[in-house]
């Protein structure tokens, strides 16, 4: 209570507030040191984006070229296509997978058969561990018009086989929903764990008041998850432009390249294959800037709306 009462005329000084709390600082110290060494110090390397980096000259010795590397990217006819593709894919993934994870957790929490629930959970977590390369191989196989399971089912039901991977309009859906398949179990873990903290008394009180299970889930469980949900949403917004290239690259083919070429695959082709560190660093920097703006904006908005924010 001494922390909360602030007399009208004086605020406590920093040292006074720190009193008794110095050990909290020590709690933070190891992390801070490691982060300074391995994250902050390397930041000087960002300038590679503005230089024409040559290994022999080192970072400081390489010629300063200003925004030239960025220019190279943006003068490519494809640049905006890749940005568009990346954004669409990212937003679609986020909007689709977010509710799925929450709903899954809520449903699992409601399931009465504990054993069955454990089985379902084990199964839904497993896809997370399958490497991307293998998963894409399986996907292409399942969707094959000739030998794939999906088309066999379609044919058995009397329909025509569909060449899924050949239709560019299907590509985004395939990408996103296979991603949901792979990650929904894993993403629901944190919600499920959070739900373990819901007080049983709330539920009991609600039952007494005559609430159905569904209403209880809606009005007790769901709001309880709100802070976690908000936080995860914000965090995910912070990686909107940073879709890794492996999955898109593995699922890319000539027919879908209009939608499957994202920033990271493009940079891989031009930057990595040509070993052009300056180029890839410049694009990474661009990504970081955009992601940051997004993150700050979303955080501010949710902060105003719900009082929950990252900082």
């Amino acid at each position: 209570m001494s922390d909360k009462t602030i007399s009208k005329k004086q605020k406590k000084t920093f040292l006074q507030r720190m009193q008794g709390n110095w050990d909290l600082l020590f709690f933070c110290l190891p992390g801070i040191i490691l982060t300074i060494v391995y994250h902050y110090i390397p930041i000087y390397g960002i300038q590679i984006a503005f230089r024409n980096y040559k290994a022999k000259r080192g970072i400081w010795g390489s010629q300063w070229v200003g925004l030239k590397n960025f220019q190279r990217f943006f003068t490519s006819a494809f640049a905006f296509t890749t940005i568009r593709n990346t954004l669409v894919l990212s937003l679609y993934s986020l909007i689709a997978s977010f509710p799925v994870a929450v709903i899954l957790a809520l449903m699992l929490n409601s399931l009465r058969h504990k054993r069955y629930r454990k089985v379902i959970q084990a199964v839904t977590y497993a896809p997370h561990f399958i490497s991307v390369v293998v998963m894409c191989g399986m996907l292409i196989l399942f969707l094959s018009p000739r030998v794939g399971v999906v088309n066999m089912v379609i044919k058995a039901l009397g329909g025509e086989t569909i060449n899924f991977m050949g239709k560019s309009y299907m590509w985004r859906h395939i990408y996103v929903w296979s991603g949901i398949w792979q990650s929904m179990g894993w993403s629901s873990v944190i919600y499920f764990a959070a739900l373990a903290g819901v007080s049983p008394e709330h539920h009991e009180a609600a039952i007494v008041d005559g609430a159905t299970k569904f209403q209880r889930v809606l009005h007790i469980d769901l709001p309880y998850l709100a802070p976690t949900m908000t936080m995860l949403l914000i965090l995910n917004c912070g990686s909107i432009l940073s879709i890794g290239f492996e999955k898109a690259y593995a699922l890319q083919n000539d027919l879908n390249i209009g939608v499957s070429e994202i920033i990271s695959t493009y940079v891989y082709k031009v930057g990595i294959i040509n070993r052009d560190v300056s180029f890839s660093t410049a694009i990474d920097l661009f990504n970081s800037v955009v992601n940051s703006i997004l993150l700050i904006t979303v955080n501010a908005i949710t902060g105003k709306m719900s009082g929950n924010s990252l900082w």
Partner: protein
Amino acid sequence: MKKLALVMAVLMIFTCTSALADFHETNLPITDEKYEFSMMIDDSGYPEDKIIYNMLEEQTNVHVNLNLAPYALQVEKLGIALNTGDYADVIAGWLLGTKDIIDLGMGDQTFLPLEDLIAKYAPNIEEVLNIPGVRESMTLPDGHIYCIPYVVGEPEATFKPYINQVWLERVGMEMPTTPEELKAVLIAFRDQDANGNGDPSDEIPFSGDPNNLSLGMLAGWWGVDANSGNSDYPYFALVDGKIQFNANKPEYKQFIEFFADLYKEKLIDPEIFTQDLETWKAKGKQDLYGVSIAYGPGDYFENFNKGTEEYAKYGENAFTYLPVLKGCENPIYHRNSYGVTLFRTQAVITDKCDEEKAAIIIRWFDNLYTNDNSRQSVSGPFGIKIEKLGEHLYRELDTSNFTDERNEKYGWANIFTQSLCRYYHDDVVLGAGKTEVEKSFNDIGDELYGPYLNEHFPAVWSTNEEDGNRASILATDINTYVKSKMAQWISGEANVEEEWDAYLAQLDAYGLEELTEIHRRALGEAQ
């Protein structure tokens, strides 16, 4: 004071001479004491399996510290290594491109110039350099040579479509000679039970290896070579010594229309643009292909029906080359080489090496370049897999009684880093128990395709960095566009007739003219 100077002088002479005494300028071993250097190369195996290196070490006293990883991984690691300054003494294999040699060799001397070392210590390599045309191609505009030359025989035409002769027989048709005849054959494949399994509807008349699909090569049937595989100038070709872009020519449009028609008639594998390698191979192994584009005869196709009478007639393989079809008066086909290819970026010595180390390394390579060593590194050790009959003449030994393990141990991929340069080009290798050389499949192909092959790009070193950077962006954009349009048109997702004019305009918008100019400049230095 004088005494000290004397002692020091003696010590110095000692150390100098002992260093030199350790390294032999000629003859083996190369050093008296065990010596070591590091080499980074792309290979899928493990250093302990590479037994030929042990053999070479016994000869030379030099141990090679191998840093191995499969190509895709190793390229990434190389990027990191070069950019951070932590690289090996030697970088070799398929990892480097001409741009690297220009930037890191000529540009900032990360790679050492080798011509003096070769002249002084490496007579075998010098011999290779003296083959007509080699030295010029290996020398950069600054007069230095930065790589060890890798001369190897290659087919003049590689990558061709193959046709199933047994199926041809079963449907009672002749080998096609024109595109229209091909279409008729494909229709027969489609409608009849060509693979003899009782189901007339499961045949796939035409398919292709997804990793080597360069369909644009087949535009040669109509007179223009729009090849995109394994090329520094995808979709470009040399015509009368001048470089020109071919994916916008009327003949190219004809090629597209033909294949779009085939696709519409269900004569082409619907998965041709979407399948991965495993799916394509698996279908082939089930005897589903009439015509397919592939690396080579390989054993993709021979796993079925082997031993039946029909197949026995054709020997090992039911598939043979589809001839160059006459889509016009003078069809052409993409030329891969003039019989011999020089790989110019195979092995470099980095600036991690001082003079003595570089000399030792060059001598080690020179030892590898002796006939016997090069041959053994490819075929296996003498006495186990191969025997020597004379100069450049060898014969394989019978290995049919080898256990699986033994086969594995002496298998081609395990005994050596096969992506490394050597010299075994002149060798004649007889099969086990044979006394004559049989015509290889590649020879047959070259004979068949020889008359139609076009000009091959000369080997140049394009040294303009601005141009190089600009070209890489333009080329990526244009190639992606052409490739995706080709796929869309052929598969019927879009119509070539309707879109042709827009396509031409778009190519211009992507900077085609500029790219062509850059290529002209690069080649013009040699033309």
